[in-house]
């Protein structure tokens, strides 16, 4: 689906985001503790060509949501830089015309809409903020159009969010995100709080909107099956790092990184009725005290001495990029 030759909508260059989670200075001095840093995102790079979808998957605490917030400017990167349409993100965010080109859709349909506002005001907020339309009537007409576009009725605008179900609220969120005519949408687990039949509705709607409006998506999810349905390319994250970045089909046909494989193995599947699986052992370590070397080595069946010491970097492996010594050495 990607358009060859066109400039990427988004480039993320070696971006890191660290959080200071130290105790108050007094306690730290007395207990002789050192400053503690949570490396939520620890140097990752990727780009998203215009009109395509890149998905980031991983377990909770792997930093995927932090990436989403870095990319829309809710966080500033500790290191590295983000380019939006070739322009530094901080500069792009300062310009309201550029800012209106990016929007975000959130996970929790119950927290993402201001409960005290009418739907029409929620959807119209970006229009008013970016001063896209001045006339009240025109705004109302545009909101009606947007609500129709996401499968609701223009009359729903007069209601309050609590009158809608989770799936309908997510549609309202999407309508709000679309109201500034964005080209780039960051979707942070947009369906994980929804029931599965409603999830299908929302995924179908998002795909439909992408083809119709030529949107570019950064899609964050913990669910590999969902990701498979919407992505052109997929990045797998573990403890703040990308471990594999690969075209979607290739990732599912030939997962390379041991963690990717473990993740796929862990997903219960309808077709596996009664089958006994061998789940990956161990637990996700704390991102405050990550293991040395490759952070996955304590759980990895392929780990050897090198993995315990040397941090692997992303290297090309066929059509994918993988950060694994075993894959590089052909031990997999």
């Amino acid at each position: 689906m990607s358009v060859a030759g066109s400039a990427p909508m988004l480039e993320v260059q070696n971006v890191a985001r660290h959080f200071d989670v130290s105790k108050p200075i007094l306690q730290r001095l007395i207990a002789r503790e050192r400053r503690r840093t949570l490396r939520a995102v620890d140097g990752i790079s990727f780009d998203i060509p215009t009109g395509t979808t890149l998905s980031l998957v991983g377990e909770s605490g792997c930093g995927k949501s932090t990436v989403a917030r870095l990319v829309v400017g809710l966080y500033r990167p500790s290191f590295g830089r983000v380019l939006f349409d070739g322009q530094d993100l901080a500069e792009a965010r300062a310009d309201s015309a550029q800012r209106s080109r990016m929007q975000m859709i959130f996970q929790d349909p119950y927290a993402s809409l201001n409960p005290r506002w009418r739907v029409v005001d929620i959807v119209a907020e970006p229009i008013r903020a970016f001063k896209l339309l001045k006339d009240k009537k025109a705004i109302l007409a545009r909101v009606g159009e947007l609500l129709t576009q996401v499968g609701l009725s223009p009359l729903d605008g007069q209601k309050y969010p609590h009158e809608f179900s989770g799936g309908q609220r997510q549609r309202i969120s999407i309508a709000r995100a679309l109201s500034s005519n964005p080209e780039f949408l960051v979707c942070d687990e947009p369906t994980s709080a929804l029931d599965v039949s409603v999830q299908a509705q929302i995924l179908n709607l998002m795909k439909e909107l992408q083809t119709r409006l030529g949107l570019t998506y950064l899609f964050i999810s913990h669910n590999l099956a969902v990701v498979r349905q919407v992505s052109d390319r997929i990045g797998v994250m573990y403890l703040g790092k990308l471990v594999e970045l690969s075209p979607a089909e290739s990732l599912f046909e030939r997962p390379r990184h041991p963690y990717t494989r473990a993740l796929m193995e862990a997903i219960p599947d309808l077709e596996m009725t009664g089958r006994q699986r061998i789940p990956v052992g161990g637990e996700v370590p704390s991102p405050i005290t990550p293991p040395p070397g490759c952070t996955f080595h304590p759980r990895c069946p392929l780990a050897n001495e090198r993995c315990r010491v040397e941090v692997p970097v992303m290297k090309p492996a066929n059509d994918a990029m993988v950060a694994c010594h075993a894959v590089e050495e052909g031990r997999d």
Partner: protein
Amino acid sequence: MSLLQVKNLRVEFPTRRGTLVALDDVSFDIAPGEVLGVVGESGAGKSMTGAAIIGLLEPPGRIASGQILLEGQRIDNLPYEKMRRIRGRQIGAIFQDPLTTLNPLYTIGRQLVETITTHLPVGPGEAREKAIGWLELVGIPAARERIDSYPHEFSGGMRQRVVIALALCAEPKLIVADEPTTALDVSIQAQVIAMLKTLAREKGTAMMLVTHDMGVIAETADRVAVMYAGRISEIGPVRQLVRHARHPYSQGLMGSIPPLDRRVERLAQIDGAMPRLSAIPRGCAFNPRCPKVFDRCLVDRPELMDAGTTRAACWLYAEGAPA
């Protein structure tokens, strides 16, 4: 004989705008050692069914009619003290969020010992040994050293293992597990499900596994009950239900699960949403969303009926249904 029988269970919630019927005419049974999966969307009444069975419905909810029988004995109308002796001893329970189900101020050892000595005729010393045994069984490494740790010293997955040990330590015959893995990460979820499955099989414990994750059910359950708007819409053996669901709702549900092994351009979807309890339509509750709806669905409420390999509450399988 069935271990647990639920007959025509009806649970009501009196509110100021009239009485809401949260569970309506729910009937099923669980055989000894069997795993019954209960699936459905949020608000379908699956957790409520579990709460009714362990006798811990949140007030003002109450059982309005119907019976719950454990080994042929009615347990839905027992006085509090008698029911207390059944909870934990005969029926164990596992809740969703391991971060909040353990008392933060007591060591896990104390909580285990307390549960064991409440139900089994053993002294504190023996109970402690048993507790260590259970911690080992649920896969806590170095159980003997860790028994005196507090809940906050364990990770989420480990805490859920402790919760499972607590639910099993008085060796109940039935476990009601309410979304036991929903709060866990995918890779941890797989570990916990595998462990729970093995333990139940080894101990011969029957299980009612409540979850919204069809994949977990498909892997773990022997039979599945699909719930919709407070009723069971279809119940049957897991393989048949997953592959050849008969009820249009179950069919839609299975179709809307994104497959892992292929990419589909458009997922099957059921339009609309499950009705609120206060606005359940007349006739079949699924009729506004049903692609195969016909006259009778709008008027009469279907009971569970034979639909080939499963039992479904759908008029399509009654005599005289349109072809």
